[in-house]
């Protein structure tokens, strides 16, 4: 009788602990979904952004690696084959009819062919790509520097962000992939519109014909299949209003961490 009581007491304690744990977890899940609590958690992003921008006042470069460090296989992730007739038509003629549209808050909107892009001020860099999931891969990227391109288009003083519109239909029809960066990153020397990976024309899986490289942020900022660049003063009117495809789905707009 006594031992049965002891067992049931132990069972009670175990049950109570499991119940308490379950309550705590359920509480965290409820908080995770509560808009006001999410706003509180999201406030950390502003702190991280401002702190890192302060520390990065001298515009330091992301580390560049020797050729020997290049990953044997650069993992393909996200959208690796856009659908849509327009992209397939471009692919069919090997991007001969591709035109990068540069518009928005610029004095001289541009429309640039791949050859014209390749004639612009270029940079080649061997850098580390960090996916938000946790893995990293190293590759050599070559492309046109974004800063001089924006100056050539006559970026207006009212512009605060650069938005990249993509051919990537990861989110289904009506919500194409897009990304945005601030002007600090747009004019960073390593921010390029890459047209080559490891000395070869950019493969479709890695974003042909043009992929943004913004080396001090995570992988989802490195927009693939870039079709158009738009200078804007605010982000809230574009798609979900958070400045990017994954941002509209809860991820940080500032992905420097």
């Amino acid at each position, binding site marked *: 009788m006594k031992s049965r009581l002891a067992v049931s007491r132990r069972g009670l304690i175990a049950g109570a602990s499991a119940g308490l*744990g*379950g309550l705590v*977890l*359920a509480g*965290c*899940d409820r908080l*995770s979904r509560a808009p006001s609590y*999410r706003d*509180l*958690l*999201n*406030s*950390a*992003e502003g*702190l*991280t952004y401002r702190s*890192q921008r302060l*520390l*990065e006042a001298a515009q*330091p*470069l*992301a*580390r560049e*690696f020797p050729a020997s*460090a290049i*990953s*044997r*296989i650069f*993992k393909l992730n996200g959208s690796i084959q856009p659908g849509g007739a327009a992209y397939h038509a471009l692919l069919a003629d090997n991007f001969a009819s591709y035109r990068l549209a540069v518009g928005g808050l610029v004095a001289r909107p541009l429309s640039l062919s791949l050859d014209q892009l390749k004639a612009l001020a270029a940079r080649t860099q061997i850098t*580390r790509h*960090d*996916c*938000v*999931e*946790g*893995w*990293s*891969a*190293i590759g050599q990227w070559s492309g046109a520097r974004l800063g001089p391109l924006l100056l050539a288009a006559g970026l207006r003083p009212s512009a605060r962000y650069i938005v990249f519109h993509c051919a990537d239909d990861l989110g289904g029809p009506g919500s194409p992939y897009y990304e945005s960066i601030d002007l600090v990153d747009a004019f960073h020397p390593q921010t390029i519109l890459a047209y080559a990976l490891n000395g070869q024309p950019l493969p479709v899986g890695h974003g042909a014909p043009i992929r943004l490289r913004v*080396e*001090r*942020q*995570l992988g989802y900022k490195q927009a693939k299949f870039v079709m158009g660049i738009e200078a804007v003063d605010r982000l809230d009117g574009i798609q979900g209003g958070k400045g990017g495809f*994954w941002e509209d*789905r*809860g*991820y*940080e707009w500032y992905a*420097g*961490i």
Partner: protein
Amino acid sequence: MSASETAPQSAPAAEKARRREVIYRHSLVVRVTHWINVLLISLLLMSGAQIFNAHSRLYWGAAGADADTPIFQMSAHARPNGQLAGTTSLGGLTIDTTGVFGVSQYHGATVVQGFPGWLTIPSYRDLATGRRWHFFMAWAFVINGLIYLAFGFLSGHFRRDVAPDRDQITPRHILRSVWDHIRLKHPTGAEAKRYNVLQKLTYLVVIFVLLPLMLATGLTMSPGMDSVAPWLLDLFGGRQSARTIHFVSANLIVLFVLVHVVEVFLAGVVNEVRSMITGRYVVPGD
């Protein structure tokens, strides 16, 4: 339970009063920052498990992804009978961890993920929200930690309470303390008024090595911070190495907490927890 509380009623009053000596052991700042840290580290560990689950493999070096060989991983594979098995591998050693690591149950469904849902925040797969929790709590952890460190140095807490006293760092004293721990024997009387030497050394390692290491390896995973402080990459052997060290350190913190809590129970849970809440500690009689 302290000896004084079980002292026979017939003991003389003066004797009883001497035995129930109460000291003010923990200052307000130490108590408050301690409990905030309990909450923050719990939330950091659990949101960290959510983040780990997004890629439940660890590497050494600058880079590492699916095509590279991990040094540690939690994964899943199908058994010949078609059922899913979860495994955890360290180097060449692989053990079956079905039900906990690799493959677990979540609301009645079998899920393939590193840590089970009951160890992650949120309990369902949501990397974006896990990151939001993690970085918010990381900032709070930094602020709480800085308050504690500033207080620890300025008030003399580290020098007086945490740094081992001269008589405690003799081989003889340390061996004696190891032997006492093995026998689960805790100091009494005057000796119970200070932390024992193993306790002090452990606290020093946690405060000045383990917790700062968590922060530093966490920052090394930030591509922004890597541009500001590239020496972090050299210090830890690359971003993926930093991720691995971050994971190992997190596990060492879990180990510390387990031992810490077991010691609290062995030393007298009521007296110890009360002293961490009110500051007042009943000195166990000889």
